[in-house]
């Protein structure tokens, strides 16, 4: 232990800068992993917390797929009371805003309950307004509660929501449902207990009848909650209820919805997690670098220790101990830093999750024992693994060789052929892995292929660096003595440089791959949007996202639109969430005849998709999205069974079409078929086709004016909707770029640290250069040229390897994760701009080492 303190701890302290860079790299790597884990957890937990809070004491719930339970069936379910208490529920995401504003409204979880039945299920703690704000009003009798809610315009909001909007008891608010504004009055405020704590207080309570009226859901409830009586065993009760329920109704535990959400998000979370590990990988390159440098610069000391009788295993453990101590400090800093980064990550992922999968307020969980444990569990073993090779080399040194300082880095003419062969083998493995199918819906082999490519590329780095030695000498003549010196220096340090350059190559390759993937995806979406969004105007109600879509376009608004003189056709789209397998899919409906006449779906199969779609009009047949087809292996001609309120029904798959709006899987049927099997609900949006000579902007204004008194709708022109689609697309991938930027940032540190180390270790050579007449500018330029050459090699390899990785991302990982076919597209401008920026950044990374080298004076070097 004393030896460790004297030999390692003192050294780590003395080399403050290098130690700090290494610890910083590990800490950032760990922080990114923890942050993504927390962000992933937050998105699921946000939903589950809301689910639990809103579920309260609910043991089981009876639902009907997608459409809720018709009230006239409730009478048939009277027997449910033999199992315990029963409460019918309206549960919906709606927009609410103060009446005196023109804001778009805030998304609120609205529960409509029969308070007489519901009180045992959920805790509603009312608080006083104004005078007694903050003080609990105390328990309120059910009768008093009922009197608060019975008015048809009564709504109870949370204190948090009221405070945010300056509302009090008696304030007027508006519920935005589809194209309607429903005026309501705040009758009471809830405290922070029970359901009110969900979604940052975005919760509202209404009487069930008033909610049905406000939401246009008369005659149906969303589900029936059951609280089992004493002596009931949940498994048996669930089984018995399931057996007795009429066709079309099903019973499940509330937490199953959480599990479905987890399944839906699995691929998204898996890919983010994989990406976050790149930053960690780069951090570990720094550990390898630090220990390698430590071993090389202390060969004489190691030799002395060995001469004095220190065993090989002690030397090995000394250097592993150095890695361990650096990793431990990195983990200690990284875990809490992860908590900080998580907030940013959650901000970036929450909007994506809410847009594509499920509405949930993602609050960041605190960094707990689990995260700290995870940090150490991954950081420490990986750091030890990273340090093993250099530590083993140190242990293998003979006393004589170490003390003599025999050269260990000079690899002038040894072209590392075995590296080339090993790399080729890895590339072959990558090719084989890329051909394998997904494992449980996750692209494990795809990731293995990507890792094999990265490994192969890392092996080729020494080869690429040795190529620098083969550049024609005429280059030196053109660029001066500094280039000659820089090339000679790099050539002599290939083994050491290979590690930090590999880290940079890996980060750059990932950046290039992700840029190509996102660029290709964007181009594909642009093409898809251009082809499929053929309507001139898109009319929607007050909704923020497709998730929790409620409320439709009223008959009056649709009539007003249809009667507008310039309209040639109108299509209406409905969608509901339906449980399917272990996840949830979207079942939608459209007017197939209108779509065939005016729209332009892009069909994947059969070749004549339009004809197949035409044959499906009015038939029990569906067209499915590509993601549905891949995820559930449903091909044209197959028969799929969808749950409906009337029980499971079979549908023929008529065609598969390209769709990039959701990876959950879409099943679309003709409007009449949908109405027959589900309900005849109003469409949530209208696609409007205009005469050729009508200006959409003029039509938009005129339609808005004509429906102004009837309803509140949003009308987008084709161009505006396309713009919105791309805005959503870009915000979705912001987190991806952010993670990449971090990995590149850390690897820049790696290059700077390596150059610094090389500069410090070459002090003797630099002294000689100064002696024979090299001025400070010569040394500065020499180091800058080294940085530039490293950047050039890294960038060149990063571009090539990134291109290979992008093919795996696009054609393997993406297809297996999300079921999307993406057309390959090279974002040339982006790549050129980022390449120049990275080259400049690499040269910048050489600034400090160059300054240090240039700042050496003869007095500094006298000792050398």
């Amino acid at each position, binding site marked *: 232990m004393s030896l460790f303190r004297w030999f390692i701890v003192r050294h780590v302290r003395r080399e403050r800068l290098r130690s700090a860079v290494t610890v910083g790299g590990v800490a950032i790597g760990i922080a990114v992993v923890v942050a993504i884990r927390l962000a992933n957890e937050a998105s699921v937990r946000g939903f589950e917390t809301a689910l639990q809070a809103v579920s309260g004491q609910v043991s089981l719930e009876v639902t009907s797929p997608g459409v809720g339970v018709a009230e006239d069936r409730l009478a048939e379910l009277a027997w449910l009371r033999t199992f315990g208490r029963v409460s019918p529920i309206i549960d919906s995401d709606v927009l609410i805003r103060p009446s005196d504003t023109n804001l778009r409204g805030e998304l609120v979880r609205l529960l409509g309950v029969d308070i007489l039945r519901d009180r045992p299920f959920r805790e509603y703690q009312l608080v006083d307004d104004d005078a007694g704000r903050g003080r609990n009003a105390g328990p309120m009798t059910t009768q008093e509660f009922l009197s608060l809610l019975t008015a048809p315009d009564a709504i109870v909001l949370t204190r948090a929501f009221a405070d945010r909007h300056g509302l009090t008891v008696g304030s007027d608010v508006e519920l935005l449902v589809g194209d309607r504004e429903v005026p309501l009055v705040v009758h009471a405020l809830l405290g922070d207990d029970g359901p009110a704590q969900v979604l940052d207080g975005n919760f509202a309570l209404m009487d069930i009848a008033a909610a049905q009226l406000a939401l246009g859901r008369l005659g149906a409830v969303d589900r029936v909650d059951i609280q089992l009586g004493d002596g009931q065993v949940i498994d048996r009760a669930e089984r018995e209820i399931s057996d007795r329920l009429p066709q079309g109704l099903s019973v499940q535990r509330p937490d199953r919805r959480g599990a479905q959400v987890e399944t839906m998000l699995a691929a998204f979370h898996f890919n983010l997690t994989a990406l976050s590990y790149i930053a960690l990988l780069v951090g570990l390159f720094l550990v390898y670098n630090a220990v390698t440098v430590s071993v090389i610069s202390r060969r004489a000391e190691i030799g002395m220790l060995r001469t004095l009788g220190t065993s090989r295993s002690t030397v090995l453990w000394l250097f592993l101990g150095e890695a361990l101590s650096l990793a431990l400090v990195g983990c200690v800093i990284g875990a809490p830093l992860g908590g900080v980064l998580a907030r940013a990550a959650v901000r970036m992922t929450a909007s994506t999750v809410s847009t594509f999968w499920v509405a949930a307020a993602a609050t960041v969980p605190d960094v707990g024992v689990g995260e700290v444990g995870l940090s150490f569990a991954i950081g420490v073993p990986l750091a030890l693994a990273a340090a093993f090779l250099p530590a083993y080399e140190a242990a293998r040194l003979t006393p004589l060789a170490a003390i003599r300082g025999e*050269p260990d880095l*000079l690899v*002038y003419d040894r072209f590392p052929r075995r590296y080339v062969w090993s790399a080729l083998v890895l590339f072959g493995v990558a090719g084989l892995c890329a051909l394998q199918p997904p494992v449980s819906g996750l692209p494990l082999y795809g990731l293995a292929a990507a890792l094999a490519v990265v490994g192969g590329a890392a092996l080729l780095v020494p080869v690429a660096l040795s190529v620098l030695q083969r550049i024609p*000498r005429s280059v*030196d*003549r053109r660029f001066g*003595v500094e280039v*000659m*010196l820089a090339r*000679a*220096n790099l*050539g*002599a340090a290939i083994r050491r440089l290979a590690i930090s350059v590999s880290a940079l190559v890996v980060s750059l390759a990932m950046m290039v791959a992700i840029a190509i993937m996102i660029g290709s995806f964007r181009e594909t979406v642009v093409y898809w949007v251009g082809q499929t969004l053929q309507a001139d105007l898109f009319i929607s109600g007050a909704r923020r996202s497709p998730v929790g879509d409620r409320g439709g376009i009223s008959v009056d608004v649709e009539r007003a639109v249809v009667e507008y003189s310039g309209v040639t056709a109108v299509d209406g789209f409905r969608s509901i969430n339906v449980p399917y397998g272990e996840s949830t899919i979207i079942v939608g409906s459209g007017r197939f005849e209108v779509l065939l006449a005016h729209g332009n779906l892009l069909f994947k199969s059969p070749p004549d998709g339009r004809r197949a779609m035409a044959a499906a009009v009015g038939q029990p047949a569906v067209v499915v999205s590509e993601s549905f087809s891949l995820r559930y292996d449903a091909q044209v001609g197959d028969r799929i069974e969808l749950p409906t309120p009337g029980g499971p029904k079979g549908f023929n798959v008529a065609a598969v079409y390209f769709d990039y709006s959701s990876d959950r899987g879409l099943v679309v049927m003709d409007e009449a078929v949908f109405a027959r099997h589900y309900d005849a609900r109003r469409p949530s949006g209208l696609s409007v086709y205009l005469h050729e000579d009508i200006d959409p902007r003029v039509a938009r204004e005129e339609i808005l004016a004509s429906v102004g008194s009837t309803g509140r709708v949003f009308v987008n022109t084709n161009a505006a909707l396309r713009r919105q689609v791309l805005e959503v697309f870009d915000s979705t991938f912001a987190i991806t770029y952010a993670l990449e930027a971090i990995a590149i940032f850390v690897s820049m540190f790696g290059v700077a640290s390596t150059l610094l180390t090389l500069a410090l270790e070459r002090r*003797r*050579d630099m002294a*000689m*250069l*100064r*002696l*024979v*007449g*090299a*001025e*400070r500018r*010569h040394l500065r330029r020499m180091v800058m040229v080294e940085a530039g050459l490293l950047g050039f090699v890294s960038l060149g390899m990063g571009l090539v390897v990134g291109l290979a990785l992008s093919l795996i991302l696009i054609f393997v990982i993406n297809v297996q994760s999300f079921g999307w076919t993406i057309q390959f597209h090279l974002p040339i401008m982006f790549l050129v701009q980022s390449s120049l920026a990275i080259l400049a950044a690499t040269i910048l990374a050489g600034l400090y080492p160059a300054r240090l080298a240039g700042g050496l*004076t*003869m*007095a500094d070097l*006298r000792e050398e």
Partner: protein
Amino acid sequence: MSCVRVEGMWRRPTGGSLKPTVSESSVSPTHPDHVLEALDVSKRYQRGDQAVEAVRGVTLRVRAGERLAVVGPSGCGKSTLLHLCGAMDRPSEGIVRFNGRDLHSLGDDGLTRLRRQHVGFVFQSFNLLPTLTVAQNIGLPLLLGDHAERSATAAVEVMAERVGLSSRLDHFPQQLSGGEAQRAAIARAVIHEPVVLIADEPTGNLDSENGVRVLELLVALNRDSKTSIVLATHDEYVAARMGRVVHMRDGQIVNP
């Protein structure tokens, strides 16, 4: 002129004058005979809490073309005196003049240029740059001095032939024997035809045969080019081959 390309430098079959052209005229001697004057120079170092006076009030004058040996035991201050004479270091007290110019007036870059143009160095441990080939090592002072590469290459070839390393130009220092490495170091030290050659124990790491060869080479170069040599040694035989010998002990010049 026909050229051949060897080891990255363009060689000219015949040698040519490479007399430095930069700022030479600005350095005018006060005494035409003395190219180097160290007048009452001292050098103190701080070693922890202790001040160590390595050179104490030494006065030394070196004439053009002179061969001077500084002799004394280890730690007597020989190397420090040579560092001061070679513009590698500044004295704590006293004046060092080079061709009559007080070095005190020169900044770091000025001293660097002076070393590059007028001083050559040879050390006991050769101090060749391990990452450069022999040819690159030898030509380095010229390349750093912005000489045209063709002329530099030609000069390297001439110099390599003179020191017997023509066949070793593409080798790296680790591939040379001790004697070869020291001859390469001497070639690098004199390729720019310096006014003064500073040699610190140049034969200290060599066997006797190579030691003699290196010594003869230094004497021959001095004879042919009139480069003054200031050489530190504790070897009486080496000292005897120099024209004048001064003895040092405890940082001072003493009578033998």
